[in-house]
């Protein structure tokens, strides 16, 4: 009986929680198309932990905490760079260029059949504070309303709409929260499901050692073929679309966007427009994203955040200053209200336009260096759009309901890899 259950479990898809370190983001995203594994949103639902890309020593503890959150039996696969020390000492190594899926499948199978022992906890078994036996009922503190029961203080109090004072929960999200880019740490204060306070605690991924910089970062230093840049831009927009669609629960469309992102080539504008029409038909813009408002528009207007700013109707685009693009008849696509739906539309429309431009560009190269329009906004020496977007995060998400806050955060497309490579290239 027991062995039958084990064999059945071994036949199932391996459930994987993936941590995307520096340079690991798109590799992890590609695993969503792989057969035999399933990426899950919480380590509690996983049997295998995949640690991809570069992990700095600052994040070792967080990785270990995620590792300990996996239920037994569990195994860890380390995919990619091993410099900077290993957060999980027993992890099985898979080199950066190779496919981690066979190793993940094998680890899952061995765990389920009992051929591989579960990894022990990495963090010490210590409560955050001594509590057993402390307090009149042994609950660890001075009481249930304001004390520190079980070693942790109670939530803060804040006013609610009925004039009562109810709990405002300080919530620490990240660095490996599935609905946000990995590396981003947010400290939120949540009343019910409304975000009443937000602060960016940290936002960084470890830079990859010797990894190829993105074509946009290279375009800061040397002229680059416009066709290459525009295809890369379309692919980034489509990858973002795939991620955002998954976040909004549209898995099948997300797979379609991801397949298109991997194969996008000059002249495939119509395929991207068909995807855009499918996304609009799915109703995302009507029910899944927060409505546009003036405050958001004012915040994004001067941040030079590419599609987010252009969706507000402002023609802010570094390509307008480049004679090579002028020669191709480039003019930016502008939105009106700057809402999250407008940002989605802007990204999809720009992806299609980029593939059209790439088809027209021939061998033309960029004429301006030092300041380039990246997929997420203006890139210049030492200044990445992610840095400017991070400054806006608190003002943009405060007052929104939880789902709207995550949707807004996703619409900014904070790319910490790009930020790291811009800083590294000009350090």
């Amino acid at each position, binding site marked *: 009986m027991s062995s039958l259950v084990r064999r059945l479990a071994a036949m199932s898809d391996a459930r994987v929680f993936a941590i995307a370190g520096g340079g690991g983001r798109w590799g992890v995203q590609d695993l969503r198309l792989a057969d035999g594994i399933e990426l899950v949103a919480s380590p509690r639902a996983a049997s295998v932990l995949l640690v991809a890309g570069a992990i700095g020593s600052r994040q070792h503890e967080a990785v270990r905490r995620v590792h300990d959150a996996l239920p037994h039996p569990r195994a860890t696969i380390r995919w990619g760079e091993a410099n900077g020390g290993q957060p999980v000492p027993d992890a099985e190594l898979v080199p950066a260029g190779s496919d981690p899926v066979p190793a993940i499948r094998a680890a899952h199978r061995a765990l389920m059949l009992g051929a591989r022992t579960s990894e022990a906890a990495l963090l010490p078994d210590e409560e955050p504070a001594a509590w057993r036996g402390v307090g009149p009922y042994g609950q660890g503190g001075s009481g249930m309303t304001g004390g520190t029961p079980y070693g*942790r203080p109670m939530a803060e109090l804040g006013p609610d709409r*009925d004039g009562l004072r*109810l709990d405002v*929960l300080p919530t620490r999200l990240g660095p490996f929260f599935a609905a946000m880019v990995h590396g981003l740490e947010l400290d939120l204060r949540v009343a019910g499901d*409304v975000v009443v306070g937000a602060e960016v605690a940290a936002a960084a991924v470890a830079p990859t050692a010797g990894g190829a910089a993105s074509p946009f970062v290279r375009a800061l230093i040397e002229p680059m073929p416009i066709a290459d840049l525009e295809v890369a831009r379309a692919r980034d927009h489509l990858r973002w679309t795939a991620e955002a669609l998954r976040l909004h629960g549209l898995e099948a469309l997300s797979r379609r966007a991801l397949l298109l992102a991997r194969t996008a080539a000059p002249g495939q504008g119509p395929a991207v427009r068909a995807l855009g029409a499918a996304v609009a038909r799915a109703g995302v813009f009507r029910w899944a994203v927060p409505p546009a408002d003036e405050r958001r528009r004012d915040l994004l207007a001067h941040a030079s955040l590419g599609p987010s700013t252009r969706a507000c109707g402002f023609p802010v685009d570094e390509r307008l200053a480049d004679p090579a693009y002028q020669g191709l008849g480039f003019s930016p696509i502008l939105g009106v209200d700057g809402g999250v739906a407008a940002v989605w539309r802007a990204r999809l429309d720009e992806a299609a336009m980029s593939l059209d431009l790439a088809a027209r560009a021939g061998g033309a190269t960029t004429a301006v260096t030092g300041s380039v329009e990246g997929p997420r906004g203006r890139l210049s020496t030492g200044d990445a759009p992610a840095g400017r977007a991070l400054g806006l995060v608190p003002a943009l998400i405060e007052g929104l*309901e939880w789902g709207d806050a995550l949707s807004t955060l996703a619409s900014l497309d904070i790319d910490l890899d790009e930020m790291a490579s811009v800083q590294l290239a000009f350090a």
Partner: protein
Amino acid sequence: MTDLGPLAIASAVMVAALLAVLGSWLSSARRPASRTAPERVPFTGGRPPSVHAWSRYHARYYPMALLFLAFDMEMVFMYPWAVVFVSEGIVAMVEMGMFIAILLLGVLYAWRERAFTWT
């Protein structure tokens, strides 16, 4: 067979309950060693929570009672209505339409009172 029907259902329920009890006993008997402190903490992305998980919130009984009444009344009247619907025909249909329209006002009121939002 029809006489034994209720008995068969009752025994099926009892067997299911027994299996459930047996299953929960087996799973607790085979549970792995107790988890460590970091393993017990709720997962929010890799940092430990700063506050305890006990959270006080307002259940808002009044709007909830209002909503319950609206939907409960609907059900209470729809069962007898369903019995006579075929014989009464279109008249019953129109009357139920009117009744539901009136009840809907209550739901709309609850909506305006933000009974459907958490905070």
